[in-house]
């Protein structure tokens, strides 16, 4: 069963969470990334996520499996949106369950950091002033034209 997925439609956190169930788990940490109405001082209207799907899926899967071996977890699961998102929409969902909360927090943070670092997904922000632009990992704009 795959632990990482891409979704072209709204993420349903209740369905995603079912993958974390385990009678031995005492702690569950969930991270959700939401589309903000602002970035780097600019007003954002909506955004698009583009993924190189085959590699995104294999990198995401590798991250979750590595988390399961690095941290004392019961389960780990994540899903990332693609396509067009509005303010408040969920862009990414990361869930882990563990016996104890130390491992759950550490793993959750590690997974989202690795997703942002490694998974081939790109965010294109559309600003209130009508401009748009692809972003670097640190959320600064890509100035690719001279």
């Amino acid at each position: 069963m795959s632990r990482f997925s891409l979704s072209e439609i709204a993420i349903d956190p209740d369905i995603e969470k079912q993958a974390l169930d385990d009678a031995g788990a005492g702690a569950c940490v969930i991270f959700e990334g939401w589309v903000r109405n602002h970035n780097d001082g600019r007003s954002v209207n909506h955004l698009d996520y583009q993924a190189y799907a085959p590699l995104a899926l294999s990198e995401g899967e590798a991250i979750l499996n590595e988390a399961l071996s690095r941290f004392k977890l019961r389960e780990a699961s994540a899903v990332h949106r693609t396509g067009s998102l509005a303010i408040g929409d969920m862009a990414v969902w990361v869930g882990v369950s563990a016996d104890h909360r130390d491992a759950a927090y550490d793993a959750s943070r590690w997974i989202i950091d690795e997703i942002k670092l490694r998974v081939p997904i790109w965010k294109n922000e559309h600003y209130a002033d009508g401009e748009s632009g692809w972003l670097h990992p640190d959320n600064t704009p890509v100035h690719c034209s001279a």
Partner: protein
Amino acid sequence: MKLRLLYFASLADHAGRAEESIETSASDPAVLYAEVRERHGFSLGLERVRVAVNGQIVPSSHLLNDGDEIVFLPPVSGG
């Protein structure tokens, strides 16, 4: 040999396309990137992109074969 390239994000904008098939003698992704960078005016240097061949991350010195699918990955911004 013939290769298929996919472009994403800022590279797709610069290339004005999401994919292309090209005839090239470039033996590895480093040489190939220099070739397409010049043609499309990419501003990102090779040191800023990762290379995927047939869905796997590879070093820029990876040996290319006829029919390979190559993606130059600009810095990602998911999450």
